[in-house]
C-alpha cells in the first residue's frame, strides 16, 4: 500500500502531520508498537528536515507485510558531502542557531539508528 504526503517548506505548525498519519496507519495494521516507534521517530526527523531546510517536498510511504519503505524527496540546497553529514555531531547550523538548542548534528544519526537501512542521495546545484 502506498501513501503520499506533500510537505510544505517552512511551515513548522504542520511538521509532524505526515508522521502522525503514518503512525495511525501502522497502528491499524497491527504493526508491533516498538517498530512503529522506530519508524515514526525517524520519519518525523526527516519530515522536519524537509520543512526546515528544503523548499518543500514529498513523503512516499510504501507498506507491505515484510517491510516499510519510506522515501523523502525534496528540492533544496542539497548535501555536498554526505559522508561528512552522516558523522555524529556534524551540523551546518551557525553558532547562533546552536545556542538556541538546534543543530546538534544528531538528526541523520537519529534516523540511521532507528531505521534498518538508510540511503541518502543528493545532487548539489540542480536548482
Amino acid at each position, binding site marked *: *500500500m502506498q501513501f503520499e504526503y506533500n510537505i510544505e517548506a517552512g511551515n513548522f505548525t504542520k511538521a*509532524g502531520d505526515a*508522521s*502522525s498519519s503514518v*503512525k*495511525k*496507519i501502522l*497502528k*491499524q*495494521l*497491527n*504493526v508491533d*508498537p*516498538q517498530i*512503529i*516507534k522506530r519508524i*515514526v*521517530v525517524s520519519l*518525523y*526527523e526527516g519530515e522536519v528536515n524537509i520543512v526546515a531546510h528544503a523548499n518543500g517536498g514529498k513523503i512516499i510511504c510504501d*507498506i*507491505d*507485510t515484510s517491510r516499510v519503505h519510506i522515501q523523502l524527496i525534496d528540492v533544496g540546497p542539497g548535501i555536498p558531502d554526505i559522508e561528512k553529514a552522516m558523522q555524529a555531531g556534524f551540523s551546518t547550523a551557525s553558532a547562533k542557531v546552536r545556542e538556541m538548542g538546534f543543530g546538534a548534528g544528531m538528526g541523520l544519526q537519529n534516523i540511521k539508528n532507528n531505521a534498518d537501512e538508510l540511503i541518502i542521495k543528493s545532487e548539489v546545484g540542480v536548482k
Partner: protein
Amino acid sequence: MNVCPTEAIRVRNGKAILYENRCVDCGECFKACPVSAIFIDQDDFKRIQAYKYRIALVPAVFFGQFPEEIEQNQIYTAILANGFTHIYEVEIGVDLLAEEVKRYAKSHPEKKPLISSFCPAIIRLVQVKFPALTENIILLKPPLDITALYCRKELTDQGINPAEIGVFYITPCAAKIAAIKSPVGEDYSMITGVINMDTLYNKVYKYIRNDRSTHPAVIPKKHLSKTAWQWALTHGEALHFPGRSLAIDEIHNVIEFLEKIENGEIGDIDFLELRACDESCAGGVLLSANRFLVAERLRSYTPLAKEEISAGNSIQAYTDYLLRRISIQPINPRSMMKLDENMEVAMRKMDKSSRMLQCLPLTDCGACGSPNCQAFANDIALGEADIRQCIFIQKNREQTGELTPDESLEILKSIWGNDKFFSNSK
C-alpha cells in the same frame, strides 16, 4: 456518541452500544448524556453491613465539596453515622509514594518521560491508543491501593479477623471503579466494594442538614500533609517531581500531547502527570460540587506542621511493609486501533475502508450510527456496518431505484429504533 475520545460508542436499535475493548472509562459520555441514560454501576450501599468492620476510603476531594461553614469533624461524624466504623483518607499514602517516585525516577533514567500511574483512565488510554508508551508508566501503586493495603494491615495487626473487614472506596469517577473490578498491573484488588461519591455526599449532606446530634462529634485525626491534600488536583504530583515535569488534565488535551510524545517531537521531559478529567479528580463525574470550587477549597487548607502530621499518623510504622509491596506488574499494550491481527488481512480491510470513505459525504453527521464518516468506513470494512446506513447513499440509491423508500426507512429504524419515526409521522 461524538464525545467519546476513543470512538467506542455506536447507535443500534435506538440504543448506544459500547465497544468495551476501546472504552477507557473516562466518563465523557456520562457527562454529555442529556437524559442521564448512562449510569455508573456501584455496589449496593447496604452491602457494607455484611462486614463487622466497615472502612470508608475517602478521597480528599470528597471534603472539598462541602461549603466552608461545614467543618471537617461534622463530615467525619456524618460518614460514621451512615454506617461506617473507620475512615481513612485515600491520600494518607501520598507522602510515602512521593518519595518512592523520586527513587524510581533515579533508577529508571532511560524511560523518559515517566508517566504517572495515578489516573486509571489514563493507563487504559495509553494501553489502547498509545501502546508504545506503556513502558513509560511508573510501576508503583497509586495512593488508593497503598492506603487500602495499609488500613487492612493496621486493623489485622489489632487482632481483627481479615474476613470481617470490608474496605469501601468512595469513588469520584467511573475509571476507579473499573480499576478495582478489573485491575491493571495488579493480581487482585484490596478493595471490597465501591460507593459512588454522589451517593455518600447526599447521605452525609442530609445528615448534616438535619443534625440531631445523636452521635458524639468525631475529631478527625490530623495527618494529611499539604502535598497529600492536593495530590489529586492538577499539578498535585508534578510539583513534587524533580526535573522537568508537566501536568496535563482533560482527556483530549492528554491525547494531543501523547501524540507528540509518541512521534518523538517532544524530548527531554522527565515526568508527565496526566489526568482524564478537567481539574483532575476535582472534576470527577461523581462529584456534586463545582470542580473549580473543590480545587480552590483544597488548595486553601492551611498546612499542618510536620510534628502535628507525624503525631496523628501511624502509617510511618508500616513504611517498610508498604514499600515491599508498592510495585505493580508491567502494563501490557492493548491496542484497539488494529483492523485485524493479521497484517495482510488488516491491509485488505484498510483498502476497503479507504474505498468506502471515498463514497461517503464526509459530513460526519452520525446518522449512520457511527461517530463520523471515517469510523463508519472502518466499521464497514470490519463487517460491523452496511454502507446503506448512510442517508446520503440512501438518497442516491433511491434516485437510481436500487433502494425503495420503505427499505431506507427500515434501515434507519434498525439504527435509531422505531420510536424516532413514529412520533414524527403523527
